[in-house]
């Protein structure tokens, strides 16, 4: 069996990432000649109907009050027990924080390796399997040999698009009550606050970001103004965060946020690899930079060579002039 750890949204439906992992699992299972199973936490809801259409014939539902508190380590412990019982050929999970953490704990408990952030899995005949995984947030790809009786992998979204999936004949649902030892000290979720509605760096269609070239925290006023005019959000580089010009929540990059807006406007940002991984999935990039050789400029879709504080005010004026605002 190829076992898939599936996640659900707040309303109980399968997440997009989980659907992608299921598709990849389906291809892998076919090449191995084994069925696909899934594991989830909580009540079945619509999940069995949805999964059967995606070729899953068996769903394991983990039921335990400790699992409703959202602690990934607990989930990992429950998962390790299930995996030890089922002995699947592979366990695949989305590379979200929650699933990665649960898989890490499970891998430790099982005494097995875990390949995270995989983009491809190639089963070996007898020897080790080969995986391709993203390193450093995806700047580099790594081909690695994975030697284990059960191959544990988390998958990055955007893995090669799956072939047409045949529905499974039937669905059996197993409710599994994991043995979570009371003697183990655990972290417990004690408070949950919903994020205020509104645009975030990840949802904004346009992100206007500034780096060292903006020069000061006051310098971001013109970026705010442009972002306001185009219905976008403001982002920044790590230099801006480190200088205290912007909050870390605005930082784009490896240790900030990874975004994929329709347009990324990079102002006074050189394009270091650790920044680039955060914006490389933007549909288009406009770079504003005094240096025509800056990597951000040479990789952008469009560029303006010049000082941020001359170019942006002129762009803002031009937008206002044309729209009569």
């Amino acid at each position, binding site marked *: 069996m190829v076992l898939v750890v599936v996640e659900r949204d707040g309303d109980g439906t399968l997440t997009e990432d989980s659907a992608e992992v299921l598709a990849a699992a389906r291809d892998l299972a076919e090449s191995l000649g084994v069925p696909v199973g899934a594991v989830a936490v909580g009540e079945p809801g619509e999940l069995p109907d949805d999964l059967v259409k995606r070729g899953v014939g068996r769903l394991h539902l983990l039921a335990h009050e400790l699992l409703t508190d959202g602690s990934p380590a607990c989930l990992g412990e429950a998962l390790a027990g299930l995996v030890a019982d089922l002995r699947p050929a592979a366990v695949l999970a989305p590379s979200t924080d929650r699933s990665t953490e649960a898989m890490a704990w499970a891998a430790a408990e099982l005494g097995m390796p875990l390949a995270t*952030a995989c983009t491809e899995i190639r089963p070996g005949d007898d020897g080790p399997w080969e995986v391709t995984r993203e390193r450093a947030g995806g700047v580099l790809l790594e081909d690695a040999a994975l030697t284990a009786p059960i191959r544990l992998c988390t998958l990055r979204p955007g893995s090669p698009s799956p072939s047409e999936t045949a529905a499974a004949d039937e669905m059996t649902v197993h409710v599994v009550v994991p043995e979570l030892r009371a003697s183990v000290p655990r*972290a417990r*979720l004690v408070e949950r606050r919903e994020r205020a509605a509104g645009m975030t760096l990840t949802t904004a269609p346009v992100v206007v970001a500034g780096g060292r070239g903006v020069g000061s925290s006051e310098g971001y006023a013109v970026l705010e103004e442009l972002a306001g005019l185009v219905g976008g959000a403001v982002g920044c580089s790590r230099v801006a965060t480190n200088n205290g010009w912007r909050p870390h929540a605005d930082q784009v990059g490896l240790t900030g946020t990874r975004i994929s807006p329709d347009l990324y406007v990079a102002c006074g940002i050189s394009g270091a690899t650790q920044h680039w991984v955060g914006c490389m999935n933007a549909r288009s990039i406009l770079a504003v930079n005094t240096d*025509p050789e800056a990597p951000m400029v040479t990789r952008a879709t469009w560029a303006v060579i*010049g000082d941020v504080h001359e170019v942006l005010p002129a762009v803002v004026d031009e937008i206002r002039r044309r729209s009569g605002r």
Partner: protein
Amino acid sequence: MDVLVCVKRVPAVGAEILLTADGTAIDTRHLGFTIGPHEECAVEEAVRIAERTGGSAGVLTVGPPETEEQLRYALSMGADHAVRVDTPETDPDPEATAAAVTGALGELPPYDLVLFGEASADAGHAQVGFRVACALRRPVVGGVKGIDLDGDRVLLRRESPEGVEVHEAPLPAVAAVLEGLNLPRYPTIKGRLRAKKAPIRVLDGPGATGGLRTLRLRHRPEARARTVVLGHGAAAAPAVVDVLAELGIVP
């Protein structure tokens, strides 16, 4: 309170990454080294906790002697003792790293809180902290962006897809933290001088290896067209707004 931070020496790559001829590693001949930003925040937090509680802030790394450069950096930020677990590999498999850290924690005096970065800045396996917590049967929380001490327990704040979560863990505990937890200080000259002379305790590594072995590194294929230069300075504004209009971003 006694806090230990686990850090990794990684190459500080610029805008282009060169690979070694055999393609298995980054060519570091012309590069400096650093610790990741997540770990820098972990060191800063440990130093603040030690200052506030009158405890200690230790720093640990797994690797060959040259990794002591990163331990000294953490010492210059205010950590008060450093441990290197000696292994020959510069980029060990995450199982091997976790085994080395777990072994060291068995030999060292007990710590109330062990901090890791969420993921190393080079390999990014994102699992060592959880493996160590599992081996030691300690509570663990990942993605941590806020730490509050409250007697014999710790409150750990993290982001979730829906918003913010606060987890409570009894001490001793483990946390994997993210940049943004705090704004790390720059080392002072005094700190640097002290760090230069500080002793570093060296422990033998377990010599364990894991089941994940790097075969080769590759650059991601880039599919971008050549850059269109819209103009220079303020004079480029109309061309920029034409592009915005074409994209449907402005009317």
